Every structure is written in C-alpha cells, then in structure tokens.
C-alpha cells in the first residue's frame, strides 16, 4: 500500500501529463505518453508520420508526445511508470549502472548525432587539432559531453588537453562571437544554423571516428517480459514512420508542421536542411538494428570518463528481438 502511494506521488511529481502503464489492449487502444527528450522539432518527424498515418493506432496504441528532460523519461520508464521513451544511447548504460532496468529496443539514429564545430579560421581539421583549444559545451553531462570526450579519446587526447567551458545551449552565439574556439553541438542542428548565418565552419563528426550507440527507443525489462506484443507493435509502428520519412522527406516535413507549432514560421530552408541531415544519420540497411560494437564502445567511453565505475553487461543494454 505504502509503495503504491509513494509511486503515485512520485509519478505525479515527475509528470503532470497523464501517465500510462503498459497493459495489453483488448480491443481498446493502449494510451501511451511518450517522453521525447527535447522540444517539438522537425527531427521527430518519424514519430509524427507514424501517428498521422495511423501506424501506432494499427498497433493498438494511442500516443501523446511529452516533451521533457531526457533523464526524466529514463527514470519514468525505469520505474515502470511509462512503457517507452526516446533517449540518447549513453542514457542506457548510465541508467543501468544505477539499477534502472531499462532496455534499448530500437535504434533510431545510426550515427551518434554530435559534432565539434569551429570557424575555419581556427583550422581544426582533425580531432588532434583540438589540443589546447577552448571548447564550449552545454555542460559536463549528456550527449554533447560524451561525444566530445569520445572524439578526444579517438585522437589520444583527454579532457586535460583542452579547456572545457560549460556555456549552456549557447554554442551558436558563443562561436559567432569568438568566445569559444570550438563547440560540441548536435550535428544536424547548430552547423546548419551557423552556415545559414554565413559562417564558414569545420565539422568533426563523432560518428566518423567512433561508432557509439545513439538515440532510440527504450522500454523496461518488465514490459518486455509481460507485454512483448506491445513492444513489438510500438517498434514496428515507429520503424514504419521512420521508413516513410526517409523515403519521402517532403511529406514528412509537411506532416511535422502540424505537430511543431513554430515550424511554419521558421526558416524553411534551414529546417528542411536539418531534416535532411537527420535522415542521413538514420539511414541503414536494416532500420532499428543495434550494433553490439557501438554499445561496447559506449560502455568503454563511459568507463574511461569515469561516468560508470565498472564494466556493464553490454548484452543486457539492448535487444534486436523486436525488429521486424
């Protein structure tokens, strides 16, 4: 009884939105609130397409998007208050190291979506050129931080070889004003905006130097055991939306305008370029598949950074069993 009361209170505190618990749908649709880890954005087009084309409904799922901090989504899924969340790859080992029983069931991004950008005047052509440079990043957490460290390690460098500057999500302005010599950014977003503003930049894509597990869908061990059909249906619907978005970006963009209020008034060229670059990071021979080596690399990177203190069982972090 006490456990129930506390869980209900924590669930309410963590999310004002209606939370759904995984349950099998017997005729009626299973209502699911999906934490997205960011604000409404054209990069979420595959989800919007899957909703618009009723792929989720065909799988017996009625979905609502819940834009919130990525870590909150992980905690809610880990506590089995929600069945699914969209998160970055590093969240899985970080959470599992603290006992959260989450499992990654479908890969969305095949390339880790982080890059280090700099003005061409800095002449940063390779990761080794970052030595001694002042690099801005949102903070010492999250994908920007982990991607940057992975890039440094790929060149035999470490954090001590550079100056890290926590600047919040102000990378574009900081680079434009020459406050930073380089910045860790999301590869589909800030580089496009910098170029649109007329800056000549160099980009070092993390994915070109090390393959890391990237953004995808997580669930928890309990949902996999008790409701595998829900997981299968969810993954299938999402991958259908992903496939359609890759095949027809213009249609996906038009659909996204219904879900992203600000999209219609934004710079269409920039937003379409963001979608195009994102699609490039999603493409693969078989959508949704996780590469075990990418998970091993993520585990090794986090160990080296000290973010996890002991190696984890990589095989428990992900599964490809639900990929159609």
């Amino acid at each position, binding site marked *: 009884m006490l456990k129930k009361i*506390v869980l209900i209170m924590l669930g309410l505190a963590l999310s004002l939105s209606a939370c759904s618990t995984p349950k099998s749908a017997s005729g009626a649709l299973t209502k699911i609130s999906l934490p997205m880890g960011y604000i409404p954005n054209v990069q979420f087009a595959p989800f919007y397409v899957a909703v618009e084309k009723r792929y989720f409904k065909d799988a017996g799922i009625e979905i609502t998007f819940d834009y919130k*901090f990525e870590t909150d989504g*992980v905690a809610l899924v880990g506590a089995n208050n929600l069945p699914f969340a969209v998160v970055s790859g590093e969240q899985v080992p*970080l*959470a599992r190291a603290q006992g959260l029983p989450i499992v990654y069931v479908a890969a969305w991004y095949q390339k880790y979506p982080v890059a280090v950008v700099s003005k061409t005047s800095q002449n940063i052509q390779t990761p080794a050129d970052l030595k001694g440079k002042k690099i801005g990043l949102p903070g*010492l957490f999250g994908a920007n931080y982990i991607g940057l460290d992975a890039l440094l390690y790929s060149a035999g460098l470490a954090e001590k070889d550079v100056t890290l500057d926590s600047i*919040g999500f102000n990378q574009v302005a900081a680079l434009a004003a020459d406050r930073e010599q380089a910045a860790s950014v999301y590869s589909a977003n800030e580089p496009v905006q910098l170029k649109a503003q007329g800056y000549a930049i160099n980009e070092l894509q993390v994915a070109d130097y090390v393959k890391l597990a990237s953004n995808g869908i997580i669930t928890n061990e309990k949902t996999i055991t008790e409701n595998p059909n829900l997981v299968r249906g969810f993954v299938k619907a999402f991958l259908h939306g992903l496939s359609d978005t890759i095949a027809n970006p213009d249609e996906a963009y038009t659909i996204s305008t219904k879900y992203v209020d600000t999209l219609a008034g934004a710079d269409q060229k920039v937003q379409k370029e963001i979608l195009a670059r994102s699609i490039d990071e999603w493409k693969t021979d078989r959508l949704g598949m996780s590469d075990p080596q990418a998970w091993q690399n993520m585990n090794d990177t986090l160990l080296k950074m000290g973010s996890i203190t002991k190696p984890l069982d990589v095989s428990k972090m992900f599964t490809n069993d639900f990929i159609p």
Partner: protein
Amino acid sequence: MDINSLKHLPHIAKHHRRWLGFISLAAGIFVWWLIARYGGLPAFILPSPADVWTRFLRALLNGELARHTGATLLEVSLGLFSGVLFATILGYMLAKSRMLEQILSPYLVASQAVPLVAIAPLLVLWFGPGIFSKILICGLIVFFPVLVNTVVGIRAVPPAYYDLMRSLHATRGQILRYLEIPAALPIFFGGLRIGATLSVIGAVVGELVGADTGLGVLINIGRGTFDTPMVFVAVFTLVALALLLYGLVTWFEHRLLKWQEHIQQ
C-alpha cells in the same frame, strides 16, 4: 514532588524546547527511512538516508563536495553583497524622492515579473559562462526584497524625529547615521533575511544553465548519471548554506539591534 521543584519547571520546559527542532528533524529522517525501506523503491527514485550519507562521505573525502560548495559560496557571497549594496543605495534614494520612485517603479515591479530561469541563459550568453553571470543572477534575485524593505524602513521614521534632529542642528550625515539607519534597520533586516536565502537559489539557477563548478553543476551531473543520492547531497548542502546565511543575518541583527531590546526593557 517537592513544591520547590515546581519552581524549576519553566526552566526545564525552556531547556527541552531547544531539543524540539532536533526531535522534529530526527522524526523526519525516520519517516524518510521508513518510506525508503518499506516502500520497496529503488535508490534512483528514493535513496535511503544511509545511501545519501554514504554518498555525502564519498563526495566529502574526494574533495568533490568542497570544490563545488566553495564555488557556490563565492558566487552567493559576492552576489549577496553587490545586490544588497545596490538595493540599499537605490532604496534610500527612492525613499527620499517620490519622483524617482514614480520613474523607476514600473521597471522595478516589471523586473519581478520576469522569471529569472527564463533570462538566465541570456545573461550567460551576454556576460559569458564565468562567475560574473552567476553573481549577477544572484544579485538580481536579492535586489528587490532588500530594496523594498529599505524604502519602507526609511519611510517608517516618524516625522517628529526629523524635527527633533533639525532642532538640534543635525547635518544630513548625522540624520542618516543617528536616526535613519538605526530606525530603518529592523525592517531592512527583514528584507535581508529573505534576500540571503534567495541568493542561494540565484546562484544555483546560474549554475544549472552553464557552469563548470558549483552545487547546481553537481545536481546536473547527479541527474545526468542517475546518481540520485548525489542530487540529495547537493540539495541538502544548499539548504545548509541557506540556513547558515539566514543564521548569520539573524546574528548580526541581534548584535546591531541590541539597543532596541534595552529601550523596550
């Protein structure tokens, strides 16, 4: 019971009242432990007091906690000092000039309607991610309560006292020193007590947006790595900082206003 022992009852009751705070705290920790122990919740949702204590010791011994607390304390001290300084000077000027108050009050009231969490990223962008933006945010949050209480305190001085000072040919400096400051201090300290606790929030808001050190950074790292005990350690340290500042202000208040107690007696 000896009738004489009843004479000691008020003293015993007073002595025990001092322990009420500790008993309340211990009861709170016990309830927390009960929920964590029998609620069946994993540590990432609700760590037990023992988990948090262990994490506290680890952070203390490896120097992590001292480094981050030191950074926050520095920001809070400088932010509080600068916020109080500017608020007191401007507050005195506003108290003395209705015209100035009418000119500035729309801005001052409007500034309170702006959520600092929303403008903190802009301040970091404009003034850089260094310590200055944190001091500024801290100073801004302290500013208003101290300003308002300064104005109210100065205006609360009875006009008859001014007449008395003038009849004694007191200069403006003497009126300020011997009448206005002592008379306004009790109300001023009310604002300072609020400002002191708010200053901790100001520093953390700045650190959460973009910083390399500070308890706000520790909270971010704790959240990012699902190290909930670390989040608790940072939050409790912030509470301790706020209590320390509040206690310091209260101590100064008692010292500086001792003369009032003598008058009342």
